């Protein structure tokens, strides 16, 4: 099932749902015809869209709101915080092309602080699915929850079949004795590749999909850092305020420390290009991540990655 199919079915079965967009229709092309006046396009007005979503939620609606990640999380930040966060209204944010998924757009479109910003809003919940399968497994629970939510939309198709979504829980694929990679979003795909390389080099490797960032699965973080000699936080986000910061907070809260290597964008934006080139240039392919952990080059061949279609 695709994102659009799930959203259409959800909205057709429950007339509380309103689908909104700030003229970002890539994810909802066929919805206007299906939902009629329960589809609202406010034009390129992220702030007004969020305010209107709050007004609709006041009237008992559940607005699912679409915009590009950087404009939604930053331009409309104060509206999200003030109009959805303070009154705890069920405004459901679908944040499109977050992180590396903005590929060739350039730094204006690079949402690399969205998780930091959204996690900082009381009442907000924050999710980053690994792929479309993960996305459609989490959304029914995310959309039915009474709190506002921010989802880093990721509709990439992979072969991975994810475990059912549990509220506030990570998807613990495995825990390794040598190294465990904590990641979220599209880099899960690369982390799977990295784990394969590391295993072929004889390491005991773990992998955790941190699909729920707020509420975060503290037990999964504590288990990984306790059982593994090295924990990696791998994310397409600024190093400040993302998963690395979340892990640090959880460890400190429990009076613990650990050997954690952050792989993130540290105080910089990334070089814009098509997604596979971006990953290669920035050192985020599975092979590169594994080699960084190993400290040496391997003969592994990085699999080709499909280029996403332009879709705004």
């Amino acid at each position, binding site marked *: 099932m695709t994102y659009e199919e799930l959203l259409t079915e959800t909205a057709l079965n429950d007339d509380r749902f309103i689908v909104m967009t700030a003229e970002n229709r890539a994810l909802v092309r066929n919805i206007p015809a299906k939902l009629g*006046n*329960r589809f*609202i396009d*406010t*034009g390129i*007005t992220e*702030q*007004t*869209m*969020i*305010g*209107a*979503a*709050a*007004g*609709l*939620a*006041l*009237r*008992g*609606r559940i*607005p699912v709101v679409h915009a590009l990640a950087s404009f939604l999380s930053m331009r409309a930040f*104060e*509206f999200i915080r*003030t*109009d959805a966060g*303070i*009154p705890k209204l069920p405004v459901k944010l679908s944040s499109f092309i977050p992180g590396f998924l903005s590929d060739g757009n350039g730094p204006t479109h690079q949402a690399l602080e969205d998780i930091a910003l959204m996690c900082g809003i009381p009442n907000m919940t924050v999710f980053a699915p690994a792929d479309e399968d993960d996305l459609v497994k989490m959304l029914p629970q995310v959309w039915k929850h009474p709190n506002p939510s921010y989802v880093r939309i990721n509709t990439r198709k992979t072969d991975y079949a994810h475990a059912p979504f549990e509220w506030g829980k990570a998807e613990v694929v495995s825990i390794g004795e040598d190294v465990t990679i904590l990641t979220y979003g599209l880099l899960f795909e690369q982390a799977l590749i990295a784990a394969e390389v590391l295993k072929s080099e004889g390491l005991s490797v773990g992998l955790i999909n941190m699909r729920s960032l707020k509420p975060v699965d503290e037990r999964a973080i504590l288990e990984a850092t306790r059982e593994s000699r090295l924990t990696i936080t791998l994310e397409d986000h600024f190093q400040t305020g993302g998963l690395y910061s979340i892990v640090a907070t959880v460890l400190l809260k429990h009076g613990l420390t650990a050997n954690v290597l952050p792989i993130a964008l540290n105080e910089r934006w990334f070089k814009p290009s098509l997604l596979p080139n971006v990953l290669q240039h920035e050192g985020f392919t599975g092979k590169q991540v594994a080699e960084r952990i190993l400290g040496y080059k391997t003969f592994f061949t990085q699999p080709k990655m499909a280029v996403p279609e332009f879709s705004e």
Partner: protein
Amino acid sequence: MHQTQINRLEATALNVREHIIKMSTDGGCFVGASLSAADLIVYLYSEFLNVNAGNLNDPNRDYLFLSKGHDVPALYGTFAELGLLEKERLQNHLSLNDNIYWHPNTKIPGIEFHSGSLGHLPSVAIGVAMDIKIRGGSNRVVCIMGDGELNEGTCWEAALVANAYKLDNLIFVIDRNHFQANMATEDLIPLEPLHDKFTAFGAAVKRINGHDFEALHEAFSACPFEAGKVNVVIADTVRGKGLPSIERRADRWFCNFNAEEVDSLLKELHGEHTTQLTSETLVVR
């Protein structure tokens, strides 16, 4: 409108102004903006909106959103006069034991949404008006904005969207008191010709004297002004209205009067004299 009705509204507004003046001490309040909006708010709750203590959760009630926010003493004063709020609670202004502070919040029954950050509630009001349209309802949505607030781009974004969605059940009311925080609007960010600006955005606009109950009644009774067009009422008002000693004064935005001044201002309100404000009452924030 009957003269008896006007007399009643004027009496209510006078009481509301007393409440505002009494709240402008022990920490103070935004007295100038509250006094400019008082007649408007009294009119809307007394004559126009089908809102009362018994229907605050009825989805068919009308909605009022106070976007300018800092004029909330006028709203609380009106609530107190119309039985939505116990009068004694106004004495809890800024007390930790109540929720009556400088901006509106939904812990006070009758407040539809919190405000304080300018340029937000036009869009929230749009969402409510959209939902009423989707459901085929006939209730109306009023959003009061300050003229200074119109500096915020989101007010104009909202005007575009309200026009696009033909929200003729929505009324943007501009409390045109001609001042923003520290100075006259036309000396900082000129707004005129304001009527033309909103007309150009596709709204149906009426400009009236915001202290004239008959004019208010005539304008609001004509809503929707034009089918399919968002309504805009530009209410020309006087900042500090009712207190000549602070009327139209750029330096009387937020005031924290001492007890003697409050007593004197209450007398001034009733036309007994004007007050010599000597103490340090000016707070600019």
